[in-house]
Every structure is written in structure tokens, then in C-alpha cells.
């Protein structure tokens, strides 16, 4: 099912006298979600991603704009008529019902010709349970399950009615780190097996990048960039997107461009052909630093952290807007820790220039 969001806008009216204005939770969101893909809505908390999900599910009514499922305009439809499966952040499993009863619940709501017989219902519930691998837990109550198991039950409950769209609200936020890794693989697998168009919300960029076909980066109700995870990572449209994606985060320097060269603190560090002379923000990915004894960028070395696979060099530079720089270099490179400074050259495709005032990306023509 292809989902089309057209100029979708949600405004929450201000409440009480203390708030100064209406809150625009989602602002003019237009996006076509291709059929059968896994889409990650990504952004810091309060960016409107959960509201977007609620708009798609029908739990919230949009102020403006349209939502289409395939060719159907569902904008005015209540959630019960949309055929979406929704997994809540806290799972919202009915605590007084067993796992089986929870999964059966949506099926028992079906009416008329759609309503399966009892045997069919149980069969479908068992299939859904098998898909998420909880078939041995059917008689338990939610309180007797671990967080990860509850999560699976919630997914099974959302899938059992064969929804046109599966929506997941922060599906991994209540799980511990190890389970999170495992469960995100699981979500990817289930999505692949069922082929249901799936949208999930997260504030964790790693989570979104690792399993999504496409990610949507939002901030304060505005969509900043949409694209395949690698593309968004490699070609961020603006400073916010660049800073939001990547761990450790990107390093932003106050720089200036003069005669086709990027200057950091009076030193030319990189050729940036085709860029007009101006003050810029230069953002460098941690993996964009290359250890080079003759490199142009000289940083004060504080320490070296060995992580086995690679090494992070913690250092500082007077132009860096964040206090420390964490450069990730392959472990084969050894840093001479006796020296007070360390020198780098920069990988051109890991350095992005942004306009000082608009914070938009400035194209460099070398690529």
C-alpha cells in the first residue's frame, strides 16, 4: 500500500494563558511512501514525528492536508475504518487478557462477511504468533512477559488483522541495549516477510538508519530531509541533518572560504572549488580525519581511546564549536602520544560546508 501525505499540517491550539501561540506539530508534510517499504521517522523529541504517526493512524485529525492509502482518501476516516496496525510505545497490551486473547482481540471486532470463524481466528492468531516467535507464550498474561516478548505480542496483535499499514511508535525505546539490536533485526525481518508498508518513529538515528529503506528527518514539525539512510548521511541538506545523524556526532568548525580553499583559523585545510568567498560552518564526520604527519589541520591532542577495531583520537581545535573533537581512525594507525599535537588531513567527501545564516548546504563542485 502506497501512502501519500499531501501538505499534511497539524496545529494544536494553545492551552491556557501561559502558552504564547499555537503549536505547529507537523508543518506542510508532503511525502509519498512507496509500497512495501520500511520508513523511519526520525527527529529529536517534540519534532512532530509521533503526531505524524497519529495522523496516519487517524487518532489525530489533520488541520490541513490529505492522506491517501493507495488511491483512497482516508483523511476524514476514523481510525477504525483505516485498517492500520499500531504498536504503541508502551505496547498497550490489555493486562487482563492472555497473549492469545490479546492477539485475537482485533479479529473479534470484525463484523459480517469479514468475520472469520473461531477456528480461523485461532489459526490466524497462531500464524501471527509464529511470525514473531511467541507461539509458546500464548496462555501467559502480559505481566508475565519480558519487555521484548511484550513487544512481539504487540506486533502480533497489530499484524493479525492484516493491516494495510503497520505503524510503530518508538518500538525499541523500552528495551535494553542488547534486546534493541535484536528486536530491530526482528522488525526488519517481519516487515520483509509480510511486505506491509511500515512506518516507525524513533529518536535514535542509529536505529532508524540501520533498518529503514528510507528515513525522514524532522525537526519542530518541519521535514528537513527524506532519503535512503546512506544518502542522507552522505549528503545532508543542512546543518541540522548533518548534526543529527552519526555517532559520534559530526564536528562543526567556524571556517571561511577564500579563493577556493577552506580556512580553519587562518590555515587552509581543504580545497573547495566552486565556492564563493564567505564565512561558513565546516562540518567534518569523525571518520573524515586522516592521520597525516604533514596534514594541514593541527589539533591539540588530549588522549587516544583504543576500541579495538578502530581508535578514537580525542583532541581540540580553536575553531571547533563543540569542545572536543573525536576523530575515528583505523586501528592500524598509531598516534604518537608523546607529542602535544596531532595533524590530520581531511577526506573531501566527509566535509560539508553550510551557510552561516541559513545553515543550508553549500555545494562543492569537486565531487
Amino acid at each position, binding site marked *: 500500500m502506497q501512502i501519500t501525505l499531501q501538505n499534511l499540517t497539524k496545529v494544536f491550539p494553545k492551552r491556557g494563558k501561559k502558552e504564547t501561540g499555537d503549536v505547529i506539530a507537523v508543518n506542510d508534510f508532503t511525502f509519498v511512501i512507496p509500497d512495501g517499504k520500511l520508513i523511519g521517522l526520525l527527529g529529536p523529541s517534540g519534532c512532530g514525528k509521533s503526531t505524524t504517526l497519529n495522523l496516519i493512524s487517524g487518532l489525530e485529525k489533520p488541520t490541513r492536508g490529505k492522506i491517501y492509502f493507495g488511491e483512497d482518501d482516508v483523511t476524514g476516516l476514523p481510525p477504525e475504518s483505516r485498517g492500520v496496525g499500531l504498536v504503541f510505545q508502551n505496547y498497550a497490551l490489555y493486562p487482563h487478557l492472555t497473549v492469545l486473547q490479546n492477539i485475537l482481540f482485533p479479529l473479534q471486532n470484525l463484523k459480517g462477511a469479514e468475520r472469520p470463524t473461531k477456528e480461523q481466528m485461532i489459526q490466524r492468531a497462531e500464524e501471527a504468533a509464529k511470525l514473531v516467535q511467541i507461539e509458546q507464550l500464548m496462555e501467559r498474561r502480559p*505481566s508475565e512477559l519480558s519487555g521484548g516478548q511484550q513487544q512481539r505480542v504487540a506486533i502480533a496483535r497489530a499484524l493479525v488483522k492484516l493491516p494495510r499499514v503497520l505503524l510503530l511508535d518508538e518500538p525499541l525505546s523500552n528495551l535494553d541495549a542488547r534486546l534493541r539490536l535484536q528486536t530491530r533485526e526482528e522488525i526488519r525481518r517481519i516487515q520483509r516477510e509480510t511486505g506491509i508498508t511500515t512506518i516507525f518513529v524513533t529518536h535514535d538515528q542509529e536505529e532508524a538508519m540501520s533498518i529503514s529503506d528510507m528515513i525522514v528527518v524532522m525537526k519542530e514539525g518541519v521535514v528537513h530531509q527524506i532519503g535512503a539512510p546512506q544518502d542522507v548521511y552522505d549528503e545532508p541538506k543542512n546543518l541540522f541533518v548533518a548534526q543529527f545523524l552519526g555517532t559520534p556526532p559530526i564536528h562543526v568548525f567556524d571556517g571561511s572560504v577564500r579563493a577556493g580553499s577552506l580556512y580553519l583559523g587562518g590555515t587552509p585545510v581543504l580545497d573547495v572549488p566552486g565556492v564563493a568567498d564567505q564565512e561558513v560552518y565546516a562540518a567534518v564526520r569523525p571518520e573524515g580525519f586522516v592521520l597525516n604527519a604533514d596534514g594541514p589541520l593541527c589539533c591539540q591532542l588530549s588522549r587516544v581511546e583504543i576500541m579495538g577495531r578502530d581508535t578514537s583520537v580525542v583532541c581540540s581545535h580553536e575553531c571547533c564549536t563543540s569542545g572536543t573533537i573525536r576523530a575515528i581512525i583505523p586501528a592500524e594507525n598509531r598516534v604518537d602520544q608523546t607529542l602535544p599535537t596531532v595533524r590530520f588531513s581531511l577526506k573531501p567527501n566527509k566535509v560539508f560546508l553550510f551557510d552561516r545564516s541559513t545553515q543550508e548546504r553549500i555545494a562543492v563542485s569537486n565531487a
Partner: protein
Amino acid sequence: MEQKDFKPWLYLLPALLFLGFFMVYPLVDVLVYSLEEGYNSASQTFFGVGLYNYSYVLHDPYFLQAVKNTFLLVIITVPVSTGIALLISLGLNAIKPLRNLYQTVFFLPYVTNTLAVGLVFMILFKKTAYSDGLVNLLIRWFGGEGVDFIDGPYWAKIFVLCFYTVWVVMPFKILILTSALTSVKQDYYNAARVDATPRWRIFTRITLPMISPMLFYLVVTGFIGAFKAYSDAVALFGTDLNAAGMNTIVGYVYDMLYGDSGGYPSYAAAAALILFAIVLTITCINLLVSRRHVYYD
């Protein structure tokens, strides 16, 4: 080791002493009285031991009338008051504007004195030399036949007593149920909506189970409270309840001790123990039923 054994008892001592003096001792005493024939509290004498008192009480038409009244009161008021309270709470929960105002209005009877409420009910229902009461006025207005609710037929008197009791016990139930309803997480309702759950099914399969512990609490305390009803009947029908045919079991106990025909602690004790047995039985039944139908987190 020695110390360990006696310390906990030392800590428990105040509570045990208190409970012993004010709960266990009187209970045992009541049991003893109820088995002593013709016990006289002034002279501390009696002339026999046996079940005579129970037999007397169980054959006393006033007591049987009191039991009948009490059972009717319990059977009618507990479900009716709980049901209406649930309806009102659901309504309160569904509205946003003026909710606090309505909540206050519904809670007002709780802070009003029983006898004052009784007075209002008298004005509503009682026939006097000057008026037939507001309710009769209304009945006549609609072309019905006026009824004397206070001194008239039995069903009318039971109706007034039940109406009064329901009115008095409702506010507390509404208070408990509204808070129980608001404590049900919105996510459950959202999940149910997304799954296209019909409203009635949301109510029976989600709302009711979620508030079942509170409902159960209200039913149990409602049963106990209704079995112990006394002041309500006095407020409506005056102190001579036997004459009005509207006595309750507790009223009977009181009359046997202090009423005009009183001075029979043995009969009072026997009646009190019979009430105790009834309440205990009903509560046990309640508990048994609740095992199947009440969900605790």
C-alpha cells in the same frame, strides 16, 4: 534467638491490646450474652444457658420483618446505586467542560448530614395536614393517584427507604469510580479504536475489567453498609420503626437494648450475631465470585 522471638510481639503489643479490648473481648462477650438466657445487665444474673435467645429472635415477627426489610434494602440499593454511579461516572468522564462543577454537585450529598437529608425527603414524600408532599403533587399533576409514602403501603415505604439510601451512598461511589475511570490509560482506548472495537465491547472488555477492583470494593462495602443500615430508616420513619414496619436488623438490635421495649441484651446479642453471620456469608460469596471476575494488576 530468645530475643528474636519476643521482640516482634512487643512491637505488636499496642495493636493487639487495642484490638483485644475493643474487638475480641466485646465479640466474645456478645457470644456469651447470646447464649445466656434472661441475662440481666444490672444484676449480672441469668437463669440458663442455651440457644433459647436465638430461637426467640428467629421467631420474633419484628425481627423477621427487620430481616426482610434489610434484605430488600440490600438487594435493591447495592446494584442500583452501583449501576447508576457507574453510569454517572462514565458520563462525567466523557465530558470536558464543567466536569469539576458536576463532580462537586454529585459529591454534595456525601457531606450532608443524614438527618438533614431525611428532613428533605420528608418534605418530598410526607403527607401532612397542609400538603401531600412534592412527589404526590407531581404524581397528581400527571394524573396519577397520590400515595402516602411515609405511613402508607409497604412497597411505598420500601421505595422511599431505597431511594433515600441510593441517594446517600451514591456520591462516594461516583467519586471512587470517576477516579478509577480516569486511571485507565488512554493508550488502551486508542489501541482498541485502531482495532475497530465497538463501543460496547470497549466498555465490557476493557473498561469494566480495568475498574473491576474498584467496583468489587464498592459492592462489598455496599453490601456491608446496607446490612448495617439503621439511621436512614430513623431519619425517614422516626424512632419507632417496629410500629412503622420499617425496622432493620441493626435497628432491632438497638431497640432490644435501649428502645421502649428494650432491656434485653441477650436477644440483642443473638440478633447481632445472626447479622454477623449473614454479612460474613455474603462477603465470602462476594470474594469467591470476585476470584473469577476481578482483575488485579
